[in-house]
């Protein structure tokens, strides 16, 4: 039985996904997600006992390199993309009261 997507679940998902949906959008999202979960429930038919989850096709070894700086100082160029910048830094709304 697929998980039933209720209001509380959608609220929680919106917090995780950092989205603020109005009631209509929430209702639509509930239906869409329910439909998708009902569908992917199909996987439950498949016996995966003892099967290791496969994340990386070619092994999951770390790739190391020497900790040497190779790029130059792009600070100003990077800040040029910021919606708001001040004194050489990204500017965000006040977070500490």
């Amino acid at each position, binding site marked *: 039985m697929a998980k039933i997507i209720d209001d509380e679940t959608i609220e929680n998902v919106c917090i995780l996904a*950092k989205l603020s949906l109005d009631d209509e959008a929430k209702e639509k999202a509930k239906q869409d997600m329910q439909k998708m979960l009902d569908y992917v429930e199909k996987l439950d038919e*498949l016996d995966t006992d003892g099967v290791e989850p496969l994340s*990386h096709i*070619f092994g999951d070894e*770390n790739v190391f390199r020497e900790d040497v700086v190779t790029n130059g100082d792009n600070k100003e160029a990077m800040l040029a993309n910021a919606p708001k910048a001040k004194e050489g830094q990204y500017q965000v709304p006040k977070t500490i009261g």
Partner: protein
Amino acid sequence: MELQTMTALELSKKIRQRQVKVADGVKEVFDQIEKKEGKVHAYLDLYKKDALARAKEVEKGIMDGTYTGPLAGVPIAVKDNICIKGKKTTCASRILENFVPQYNAEVIDRLEKAGMIVIGKTNMDEFAMGSTTETSAYGVTRNPWDLERVPGGSSGGSCAAVAAGETFLALGSDTGGSIRQPSSFCGVTGIKPTYGTVSRYGLVAYASSLDQIGPVGKDVADCAALLEVIAGHDPKDSTSLDRKDLDFSKSIEEKKLLGMKFGVPKEFLAKGLDPEVKDAFMNTLKTLTEQGAIVEFFSVATMEYMIPAYYIIASAEASSNLERFDGVKYGYRAAEYEGLHDMYKKTRTEAFGEEVKRRIMLGSFVLSSGYYDAYYLKALRTKALIKQEFDRAFAKYDVILAPAAPYTAPKIGESLKDPLAMYLGDIYTVAVNLCGLPGITVPCGQDKAGMPIGIQMIGDCFGEHKILRAAAAYEAARGAFPTPERGGAEA
């Protein structure tokens, strides 16, 4: 010979033989764009001035021996999720409407070293999430074969541009079929390489374990040559492989099918496959056998589980990758908000499209505490079983054959009403990404309405040489494939 009818390799050869100027190729492409782009809308951005200036540079470079490669002087279009320094890279999303990368993707550096000329950025589904290019925030791309139909997706702009003659070559990206399916819908050739063959540095990530950049072109030889240009180890991408067998153009020199073993998953031809697509597919099998290939049918027990596993994994990775778009470092920021968290939420809600939000939410859910094992890990275990099944098949067969899509290009406006139905259309392509395999789509027929149909040739990991050889041999046996004429941009 008209420039427009030349392949990329033919154009470059004429240029290197001093019979055609580099600028002539560029002008030809912009002439076609001027004629057709108003109808097709394959591009999001065009660099005519830069391209003509670059053409001069490349002309000089060819003269002085800087550029000697087989694609020197060839114009190329780039999907808009690949970063070019100083050029807007939007991923067809409002959230990146004004994002200008400060660096080149590795593939862009490689195109430049090969003496190629980037002419513009192509339209796509927003963040490559979609199968029709209709989820773009900047308007739909129309299929050059029939302007009422979609070009497929997500690399719909790249495939439509090649089909319309608005470029000689293009780069796309393929996460679940996004090169192979639109190639089928647009009657062009496209390759999804083995995972790790082409650097993902500078490709805006959708689902990192599945994404690969690949070539789209007029024929197999052009695609093989472009793959050779963009493939290769890159320390900037930790999943990049150090392959030594990158001489892809060589593998198509011998166009021989004799003795090659092809496997066809029986289940792929059962329910859901359009009869006309099936006919074209079966005719292709006939051509292959006539050329001396051995074609056998085999059973794939995991078929029904491919789409569920794919959409769980892809959405999970997408939700994580797209966290970075929060209105702080780049892109869109909501105009009004109360505090930091409200800014994040309003920014994302206002600037992400429906399909992107849908996948971010699904991904957030399947990774959330309490559901991670039941959905995400279950999908990864399923992926292991799918991989085992393909491993067994490749112990017997050189190449696996499949349709590229269950149907030809649908009408604009038909697909987005039912997202799940659209996802099901990816049935023949997603396993290739889950298993890291290489796949190529080659045009193999047309339906009664004249819309192109492609066949997909899938190789084992590192099996590009086999699928290229098979595709080139099939292409030679098939003969020239038509270009769009009726009811489309030419009308």
